């Protein structure tokens, strides 16, 4: 049987090679789609895990709270385990904070100095950030976690080696006249950023913490972003927070919330997961496209197998009729041709699968099954036809 099979394939080398190459090409297409799908899925999983979710305490209508000084406390409480207040800490893997000092003096200019823990916070909390940072040699964004007196300036100030800033803070008081506290600090420049419309000076977050403490000022926390330990926990986190905070409602009405009978906190908590949603939606559409393409290739493979089988058999119709007139049973003809063609399909699939290191075993098995089923169907259609009619058609 094996000898016969090899012989029959060798008799039609070109048809055989064409069939093998065809099956191999479809296999490669399937494997390639599978591979790109897997890569996208992995990259999505990595991005999903590292995408921050932003938290902001707002008024009930979602606008910034007027009592800005109090916010720092509220925000801080969210991330501390004190057993009394709502606590995000168990969910948080990495925390990014951005604080701003809006009126620092740089020479005659007033600039906003922003303390950040990572450029990510600068980028993702700054609407329309379209810039990049050119670091001076020996520095990178790790510097934002140190307590060094360094800063990153807008590209317009390129060439400046250091800046001296004066921080003036007015301490309000009901009984006494307001008191102004000042501190002057020099910063070495470690990089320049390009970002149209943005002119902040970025410094390490610990440096800003120190300055606020020195001035006795209330921190102006612009935002807190967290990379959750597992972004899949976000629904659970939302539910937990919904016991303590209302959600911002643009209509301005207080929405009922909480497990208590009274309004526990007088603010809303805005959990901004837009980045995550955008990423997920984008990836879902890409994965869907990939799946669609893979299904299309599979269907194409099925159709192609059927048509190839059909045309190969049709081209050998006379030969098959002769086999039948000589007494070969339908089963014998089916087996002979199925094996002959099937071996070619399998060789093609094997070659394509080997090339891609057997990455898409399930898809390849499916492809293999569909191809062979297509071939079997084409053969069955021919063999079920009335022999006399077939021969009359050919005459």
């Amino acid at each position, binding site marked *: 049987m094996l000898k016969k099979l090899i012989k029959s394939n060798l008799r039609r080398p070109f048809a055989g090679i064409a069939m093998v190459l065809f099956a191999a090409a479809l296999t490669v297409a399937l494997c390639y789609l599978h591979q790109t799908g897997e890569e996208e899925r992995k990259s999505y999983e990595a991005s999903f895990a590292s995408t921050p979710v932003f938290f902001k305490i707002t008024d009930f209508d979602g606008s910034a709270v007027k009592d800005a000084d109090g916010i720092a406390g509220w925000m801080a409480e969210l991330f501390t385990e004190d057993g009394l207040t709502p606590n995000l800490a168990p969910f948080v893997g990495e925390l990014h904070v951005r604080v701003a000092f809006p009126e620092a003096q740089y020479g005659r200019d007033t600039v906003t100095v922003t303390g950040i823990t990572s450029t990510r916070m600068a980028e993702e909390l700054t609407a329309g950030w379209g810039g990049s940072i050119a670091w001076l040699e020996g520095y990178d964004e790790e510097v934002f976690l140190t307590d060094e007196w360094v800063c990153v300036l807008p590209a317009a100030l390129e060439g400046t080696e250091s800046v001296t800033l004066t921080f003036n803070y007015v301490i309000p008081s009901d009984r006494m006249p307001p008191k102004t506290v000042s501190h002057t600090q020099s910063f070495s420049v470690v990089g320049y950023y390009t970002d149209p419309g943005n002119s902040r000076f970025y410094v390490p977050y610990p440096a800003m913490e120190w300055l606020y403490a020195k001035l006795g000022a209330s921190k102006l926390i612009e935002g807190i972003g967290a990379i959750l330990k597992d972004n899949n926990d976000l629904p659970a986190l939302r539910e937990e927070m919904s016991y303590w905070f209302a959600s911002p409602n643009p209509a301005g009405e207080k929405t009922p919330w909480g497990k208590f009978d009274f309004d526990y906190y007088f603010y809303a908590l805005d959990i901004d997961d837009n980045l995550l949603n955008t990423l997920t939606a984008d990836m879902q559409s890409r994965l869907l496209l990939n799946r669609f393409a893979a299904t299309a290739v599979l269907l194409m493979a099925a159709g192609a197998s059927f048509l190839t089988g059909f045309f190969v058999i049709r081209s050998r119709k006379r030969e098959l009729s002769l086999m039948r007139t000589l007494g070969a049973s339908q089963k014998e003809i089916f087996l002979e041709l199925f094996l002959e063609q099937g071996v070619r399909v399998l060789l093609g699939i094997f070659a394509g699968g080997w090339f891609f290191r057997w990455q898409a075993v399930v898809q390849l098995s499916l492809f293999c099954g569909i191809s062979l089923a297509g071939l079997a169907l084409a053969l069955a259609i021919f063999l079920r036809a009335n022999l006399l*009619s077939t021969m009359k058609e050919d005459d």
Partner: protein
Amino acid sequence: MSISLKNVSYSYKGKFQTVKAVNGVSYDFEAGKCYAIIGKSGSGKTTLLSLMAGLDLPTEGEILVNGKPTAEWNRNQMRRDEVSVIYQNYNLFPLLTVQENIRYPLDLKGMPRKEAVALAKEVRGRVELPENYDKRLPAHLSGGEQQRVAIARTLAQGCKIILADEPTGNLDTATTMNVVEILRSLAHNDGCTVIIVTHDPAVAELSDVVLQMRDGKWV
């Protein structure tokens, strides 16, 4: 070994209407004789021959092969062991050598390779083809040689009923006579029932019995 037609009719659906290709034909073919069925194109002679070969069943009546209706035969088995057909066009497998073509029905019967090769060589000799033809492909043979290979295959098959549909259709006169002579000798010397469908009056003349068909009936 005989073949009998009992009021055989066969109709099939054509493009626009049902065609009655064979219409109530009866006849008893005897062993040891060479028959010629003649008639114009479309008279039903090839269809009748195909029915006798068991390619399909009559729509009415019956065909008895060795006394048993074709409907009751395992028709693959019948074509393997009892009835052999030689066609004008459907003769040889183009990618098999002469010897492999002759051996094909023997392989179907499950004959051991050595025996099959020996028998193939013997029958190839009987149709007067030289030994070096064994490895040739049909494309390298003339029409007459191809037809002789087909006859050799029939001989190897060992069937006692031989049906030939225009076996000399593409051959020159000398080769035609040669092929008919081989078929006649199969009838007369080997006791086969040979039925030849032909347009050629010369072939008909060499047959023992000539039957003429028109519109699916004997004339």
